[in-house]
């Protein structure tokens, strides 16, 4: 045993700094959920603040605003998950049909780009483009349509959130499918050619069945995001006009907690989100590993 430790002590040492940082910045905040069960006063600290049990949780589930916020989060997130699962998959099928490599690579370069820009930049760009007299509305008017209040009407705001999120991320999402598609055995296509199959037949009978398992794993894992409607995006695009339908848990927690100082209520709402997220992520990983043999380790 002593010999063994002499050989492996550097391995523990290598892990030490990371472990310490995770304890301080991840595990201690996890214990901070206690704040949600207290009437937290910053000057009393977490240990001395009075314990109030489920008070804040009861308040949350009876408060129309909090319930609306949870509902908004769910609706926005679920649409992002569904549309965000379909678009990259469909787009890779079309991109996979391209034989000219230079063209394919150019398209890829262009569609990956928005993924690397943050929502501060994109929010700034989109609020300008989607303004009532912005470029998009000028275009709509040019086509003889009515102007749309993209960022001022609740339903349109949700639509804008989902569309712009998919716009930002779909290109990046195609990477994994294209990688899987290049891995398909070419002899399958050659055999199909001999049988007289056209591109459409080949896509339906070879490409799609080969990629479906990966698509299912990705879709399953993304269910863990069901209460992640995207703080950065919403925060940089919303305004009081659309709070009713566009305010989400994370923006609510930030406003109520850090701006208004209701630490306990905000923590309770955040804790609710973390617990739901945990259950979903744990379940989906379990499913993915059981049925698709997916492992992170």
């Amino acid at each position, binding site marked *: 045993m002593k010999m063994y430790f002499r050989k492996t002590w*550097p391995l523990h040492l290598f*892990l030490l700094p990371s472990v310490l940082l995770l304890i301080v910045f991840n595990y201690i905040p996890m214990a901070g959920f206690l704040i949600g069960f207290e009437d937290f006063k910053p000057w009393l600290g977490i240990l001395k603040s009075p314990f109030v049990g489920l008070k804040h949780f009861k308040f949350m589930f009876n408060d129309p605003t909090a319930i609306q916020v949870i509902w908004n989060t769910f609706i926005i997130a679920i649409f992002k998950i569904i549309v965000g699962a379909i678009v990259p998959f469909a787009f890779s099928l079309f991109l996979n049909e391209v034989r000219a490599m230079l063209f394919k690579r150019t398209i890829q*370069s262009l569609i990956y780009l928005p993924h*690397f820009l943050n929502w501060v930049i994109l929010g700034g760009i989109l609020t*300008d483009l989607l303004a009532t007299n912005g470029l998009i509305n000028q275009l709509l008017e040019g086509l003889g349509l009515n102007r749309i209040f993209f960022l001022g009407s609740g339903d349109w705001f949700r639509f804008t959130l989902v569309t712009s999120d998919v716009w930002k991320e779909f290109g990046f999402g195609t*990477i*994994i499918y294209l990688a899987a598609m290049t891995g398909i055995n070419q002899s399958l296509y050659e055999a199909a050619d001999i049988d007289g199959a056209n591109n459409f037949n080949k896509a339906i009978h070879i490409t799609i069945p080969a990629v479906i398992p990966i698509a299912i794993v990705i879709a399953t894992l993304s269910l863990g995001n069901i209460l992640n409607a995207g703080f950065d995006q919403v925060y940089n695009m919303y305004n009081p006009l659309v709070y009713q339908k566009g305010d989400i848990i994370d923006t609510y*927690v930030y406003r109520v907690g850090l701006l208004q100082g209701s630490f306990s209520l905000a923590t309770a709402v*955040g804790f609710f989100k973390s617990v739901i997220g945990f259950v979903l992520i744990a379940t989906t990983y379990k499913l993915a590993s059981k049925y698709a043999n997916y492992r992170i380790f």
Partner: protein
Amino acid sequence: MLKLKFSNRMFQYANHLFLSIVAILCILPMIHVLAVSLSSNYATTSFLVKLWPIGFTWDAYEKALNSNNFLVAFKVSILRTVFGTLISMTLTMLAAYSMSKDNRYFRGRTVYAWFFVFTMLFHGGLIPTYLVVQKAGLMNSLWALILPVAVNVFNVVLMMNFFRGIPKELEEAAAIDGAGHFRVLFTIFFPISLPSIATLSLFTMVFHWNSWFDGMIYMNQANKIPLATFLQALIAGFDYTQIGLNPSDLENLSERSLKSALIFIGTLPILLVYPFLQKYFVKGMTLGSVKE
């Protein structure tokens, strides 16, 4: 047969057209911003600019780049990106090396693995994290932007998977020559995995450059905020005094083109590293996810 070929060719044309349109839609907004930033006051305030500058002028860029606050924020961003990436990558390499060892050799690996992965599954949430950073005395310190995000478990997992693909023989041969773990890591694993390190470093750099929220909540002095946070504040509620401009400076310059110029300058570093990013990230993305 001829008919089939014809329809096939039609499909190819239509497909190319469709893909081109979608791809152009991905960058059109950026082109519009660039055009607005280079246009005159009149053209921008009356929303005349589409995709090409009208009344071309560099004014907005001149004003933005001469703003002291802008340059200070730029410097903070550079600092956090450089140090944040260095620290994060060092921790990633060290942790991934240990984690890549076999369970039978490195007992405790499973415990460490769960300890790391659990942080991906459960989050303490905004308020407790904020209070920890505050209690740790990191408010207004560059460390507040670096330490809480220094350990990226996802990167550790990717790196670990890469290390596991390195042939055992290399390590064993070095061990016979008397090399310890330090030597094995720095003289064998490090050089072999340079492409992976480059990939993850680029991702980490982009992450740091783009982060703005931590700067907003942890920094409350104007000279401490990074560029992304600075831009966020400017875009959200435009106030030219923030970048040290007088109302008289805006005679020939519209708010809109100044904003657009700032957005474009904020994007520029990403655009500059983008070719390198692109070279590596496809490999990086599929490094850990598609396994045989």
